[in-house]
């Protein structure tokens, strides 16, 4: 039996019919084809499915779709404003923080939530904040640099 779940998804208010056992990840990827939210472990350990729920970073494999009732949900597809990238996205592109890119949407969402909370982080604070997201390609260095650059850009904007 599907249930009705109202939510604001990527700035659009809508009511979605979901199975009670679906995770948000399942809803986004398999039912809504929002495949920018990736799937990597389904156990909350890799972070590639990170999205924003009411502005907080959430691993969408660990949250049921039904739990998002009434919430504002933002996926990587909803972060840019039209063709204008979010400063975190721009920084990831420009600083070479993207190699295979599979972890990138999750990192970008996690970093966006973190910078909203801590606009002027130290390198160590960035390292700690991103611990829940795995990257195997970059060695994380260029990701740290991108987050620092994004913090600067957000300050200026």
């Amino acid at each position: 039996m599907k249930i009705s779940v109202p939510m604001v998804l990527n700035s659009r208010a809508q009511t979605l019919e979901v199975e009670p056992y679906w995770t948000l990840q399942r809803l986004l990827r398999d039912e809504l084809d929002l495949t920018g939210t990736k799937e990597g472990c389904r156990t909350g350990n890799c972070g590639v499915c990170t999205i924003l729920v009411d502005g907080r970073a959430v691993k969408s494999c660990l949250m049921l779709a039904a739990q998002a009732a009434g919430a504002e949900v933002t996926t990587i597809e909803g972060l840019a404003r039209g063709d204008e990238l979010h400063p975190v996205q721009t920084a990831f592109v420009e600083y070479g923080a993207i190699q295979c890119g599979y972890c990138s949407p999750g990192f970008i969402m996690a970093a966006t939530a973190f910078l909203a909370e801590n606009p002027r982080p130290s390198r160590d604070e960035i390292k700690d904040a991103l611990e829940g997201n795995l990257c195997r390609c970059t060695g994380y260095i260029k990701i740290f640099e991108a987050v620092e650059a994004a913090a600067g850009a957000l300050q200026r904007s």
Partner: protein
Amino acid sequence: MTATTELHAIGQPILKQDAYLKATGNAAYAGDVRLPGTLEARVLRSPHPHARIVSIDVSAAEALPGVYAVVAGKDVPPIRIGRFIKDRHALAREKVIYVGEPVAAVAAANEEIAEQAIQLIQVEYELLPAVFDPERALAPDAPILHPDLAQYIDPGTSKRQGNMRNQVVHEVGNVEEAFNEPGLLTYEAVYRTPRQYQGFTEPHAAIAQVDGTGRITVWAATKAPFGERQSVADTLGEPVSRIRMISPVVGGDFGGKGAAFIEPIVALLARKARRPVRLALSRLEELTAMTSRASCVIRLKMGVRRDGTVTAMEGTLLYNVGGVDDSGAGGANSAGVLLGAYRIPHARVVATSAYTNSSPAGHVRAPAGPQTSFATESHMDHLAHVLGMDPLDFRIKNALGDGDTAPSGHGVLRNVGLQECIAKARDWMARELGEKGRNQGVGVALSLWALHPNPARVASAATVKIDVDGSVVVTSGVADQGGGQWTIVTQVAAEVLGVPVEMVSVIAADTEATPQEQGTGGSQTTYRVGNVVRQAATDARRKLLRFAAERLEVDEEELDVREGEIFARSDPARKVTVAQIAQAAGASSAGPIIGTGAEEREREIIEQGHERSEVVDAPSFACHVAKVFVDPETGQIDVQKYYTSQDVGRALNPLACKGQIEGGVVFGLGYALSEELLSDQGVNLNANLWEYLLPTSPHVPELTVELVEVPSTYGPFGAKGVGETANIPVAATIANAVADATGARVTQAPLTPERVLAAVSGS
């Protein structure tokens, strides 16, 4: 070195072509391909390490509503498949030889039904004795995994019998005599290295679609679509022309995405169901049934004169390759790499791979590199200590140089950049290391990746088409698993043709649309693919200039191209755009401008007066340095500073180059400190991402990467391989730093706190 200032695309930190798509969530990986009516697949896997399959009953699964197809061993032909040795079936036929081996598979309307259907398949097994230790597997009374091993197809020619997958002996000089030299100092030790998981963030995924004529298209997370196509075709009993493999954006590979494990299964299911079928593996499946770096036991003895000259090496390597071997040439075939970066006149190395009922071994970034480096670089460090020599001085005294034979024995080294790497490392050490406090230590190690590029006979080709608006389309079989291969292709074509990088696009890694290609890896992709693209672009440029010369009434040699304009060097006002010429050519009887290029390196080598087997023109050396703090109470290692200088020949894209090296170092830190796939009775114990410990962001040390550029002779614009040199020596660098801090040598990687404490307390 050639003047960098004249180049507009090469040597520039060009942003990756696909980074924008990836940053916005618009890059489609194999698991993101959406086709109407797609079924979800699940695989039933063996719970036993070694068992005969008595019977399989799939009737209950087939009867479940929502199930469209069930396949099992009876649906696959007796022909075996594999990337190197062909030693497996897509689904087990008579018996299973490792836990997690695919036994049957289901395609259903959704994943819940598929899971349920899998549970309904009845398999009767008769358990067989199993063997997990490679040494015991080689004993005469061990249970035999592959009774027909002698009949298997294997591109290698090495010895194999019983559970011995292969054995290679690498011999130079006269070891017995060398060790008998009076006064020679000898040292012997045993080193152990772990199973390491590739750790890509994207698990294997594939989707197969059958068209009305029965032709099958498979989108897969693979870096070797042409090789995998053969395995799919063999499993389906179809000619390769009936199978189309496409490698879309790939979410990391590190060696693990070059062999067809799931692709033949989705293709079988799609053919049977007549619907698209998708399979994405779980991490449990990844870490149980897929490949990892072969563990290795290394027995090493070296002989050194009092003046610090290493004269003799004797070593044995024993690799555990598990039930099926996807590591091929990366394992025992590369016995010579135990010599590392050193000139050792007398050496004998015996490398053996053994089949056991463990999970399969496969390629992992720099196959055989980290295992052998851990032993050799630890050993060299100990010898320097015993001799009272500076560890870098000792290494320099024995290091390979121009004109030396590569350790693998397949040619003479040219363009060696090691001395520059060491010089830069020394400068950094003097500048940045500071005082060494209590429980702090500094370690060094050298790295060499010279197995490839070698003058291998590999198929590689490219075409370059100039469109009517002056844009350029390159077709190449190369897959981009994150290393930026497609970006490099655009840079090379843009440079040769004199058009902006943004004007170049790539059609790649599609077995039907692009030329054949070996597959991304071995740090040879930029070298090889870059060369064929350079040749194709040069061909297109020649045709372009010929047309332009006619139109401008100038000699071809007089013409140059820059920013999409062709002009006479003597009179730059006489010019025409690339677009105009492309249009004119397209309307002429000569037809549109298309350039082609194929691997012509052999011809180039011969023209320059060399024998092909003589030259290793692109050896990639590196020097690594680590400063660590070792907690005497817990044995915990804190890597405080890490440095590497690496010879990349020519950094075609410095941003991508440094990114590769940084990633490589942290990959190596995982191997050094925490990554170890543990197993008991063939069952992998930490088959998940919370117990298999990949490096995370807080563990990344302050890391400095410096590039050295000693150009290769034949690589595109002087490039050498980059990706694998960086992770090879990290474990040894850390072990050497720990020995410096504590006086104790840890001989087993990873260097967990327990192992460090045990070494310190001498137990």
